[in-house]
């Protein structure tokens, strides 16, 4: 058993951290205040290759695997502080590009992947509905087949990137009575007649990542825009969620590493009386706990990434990874603020923003309670 990254992965991680620090961190506080998405940052990420890490070279991507993705995003989280932008890139890759890559026809791949990789197009994923929330498979958005197209009706909420998206992955019932087994998945263009995108919703954290409702009123979707087969949407959603839950927290491992470094440093330089606060056992233990949470989170991340790189089904493992890392990440953000005392509470230090950003992780990709439901239903 070898727990180490290879040389190439170490280089990728390092150059990702350098890139993020140089190119993504300008004016983050101001953009956070204004809930502003950075299209320049998005394009810089595309130029660096982030959107195409998992996409084969024939479509303009880097053709790398899930472990490479985890290593690169860990570097991005370490160097970058625009957590909202990084979250948007993750959503674009993991829940828009992945379903097209895994389940799209050759024609759809050829048409959409190059533009999604180059940064020209932005993707969103619309599954959640206002009335069904976590109970995804009782959604009411429907798609009715008519000749060579489907008629899509319904509305979705909390779709990350929707305000700036060019294309949407939409899950809709083609046979409502079958629930999970009656769901289908469609690729829907923003210009589709009858599609309306709501205003950006103001959030507590991840404010530089736009999010909104999307509504479909008798939208005519070409039958060629179905991903996979009719009725296979639930399986595709499960596949996509494994990738998202397994990998979306990779950048947060980088953030945890950066935070730990700055807390260690602060614990040395902050002196009360004649001694560094790091000499207080209460502070030293917080740092020890942060380190343990970071290392165990990293182990879970790379185990999940390895399973996905082996093309294994990993429903339980990815739910556990998402649950464990998100809760650890939030806990580390809280501890970092405590170590910094009142300075940690001040906007200038960035720690309160990081906690606000971290708190979102207990909701997206399924809440922590839902991850526990998944884990228990896989073993009970």
């Amino acid at each position, binding site marked *: 058993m070898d727990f180490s990254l290879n040389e190439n992965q170490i280089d990728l991680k390092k150059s990702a951290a350098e890139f993020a620090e140089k190119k993504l961190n300008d004016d983050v506080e101001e953009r956070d205040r204004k809930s502003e998405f950075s299209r320049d940052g998005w394009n810089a990420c595309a130029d660096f290759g982030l959107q195409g890490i998992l996409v084969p070279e024939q479509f303009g991507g880097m053709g790398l695997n899930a472990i490479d993705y985890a290593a690169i995003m860990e570097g991005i989280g370490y160097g970058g502080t625009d957590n909202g932008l990084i979250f948007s890139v993750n959503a674009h890759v993991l829940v828009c590009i992945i379903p097209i890559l895994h389940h799209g026809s050759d024609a759809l791949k050829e048409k959409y992947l190059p533009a999604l990789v180059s940064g020209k197009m932005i993707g969103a994923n619309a599954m959640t509905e206002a009335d069904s929330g976590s109970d995804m498979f009782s959604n009411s958005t429907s798609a009715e087949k008519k000749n060579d197209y489907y008629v899509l009706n319904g509305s979705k909420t909390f779709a990350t990137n929707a305000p700036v998206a060019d294309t949407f992955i939409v899950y809709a019932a083609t046979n409502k009575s079958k629930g999970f087994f009656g769901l289908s998945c469609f690729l829907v263009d923003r210009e589709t007649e009858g599609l309306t995108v709501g205003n950006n919703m103001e959030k507590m954290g991840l404010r530089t990542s736009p999010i909104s409702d999307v509504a479909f009123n008798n939208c005519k979707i070409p039958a060629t825009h179905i991903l996979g087969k009719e009725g296979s949407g639930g399986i595709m959603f499960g596949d996509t969620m494994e990738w998202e839950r397994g990998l979306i927290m990779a950048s947060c491992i980088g953030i945890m590493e950066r935070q730990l470094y700055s807390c260690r440093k602060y614990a040395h330089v902050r002196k009360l009386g004649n001694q560094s606060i790091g000499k207080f056992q209460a502070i030293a233990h917080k740092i020890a706990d942060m380190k343990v949470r970071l290392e165990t989170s990293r182990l879970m991340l790379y185990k999940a990434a390895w399973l996905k790189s082996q093309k294994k089904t*990993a429903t339980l493992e990815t739910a556990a990874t998402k649950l464990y890392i998100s809760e650890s990440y939030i806990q580390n953000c809280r501890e970092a603020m405590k170590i910094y005392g009142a300075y940690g509470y001040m906007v200038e230090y960035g720690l309160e923003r990081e906690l606000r950003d971290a708190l979102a992780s207990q909701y997206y990709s399924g809440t922590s309670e839902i991850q526990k439901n998944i884990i228990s239903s896989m073993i009970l």
Partner: protein
Amino acid sequence: MKDEIKKYIVDTFMYGEGSVEYDQELYESGLINSMGFFRLLTFIEETYDLSIDMSELSVDNFTTVNDITTMINSKLENK
């Protein structure tokens, strides 16, 4: 193989009580739900040392014990 899968289904989803026919539809009857689907998939990958690409799966080739066995056999042949 068919009996092994059948036994897993009865043990896991029926707590060992009752039986399943080889051609019985497993989902619409409510016997296996969405999470059960992924649980069965994980069992198959682990037991037969396979990686099943979810894009190959659909509700029509994974619906009965007979379908599932056919799918596994074809995967094993092409391994």
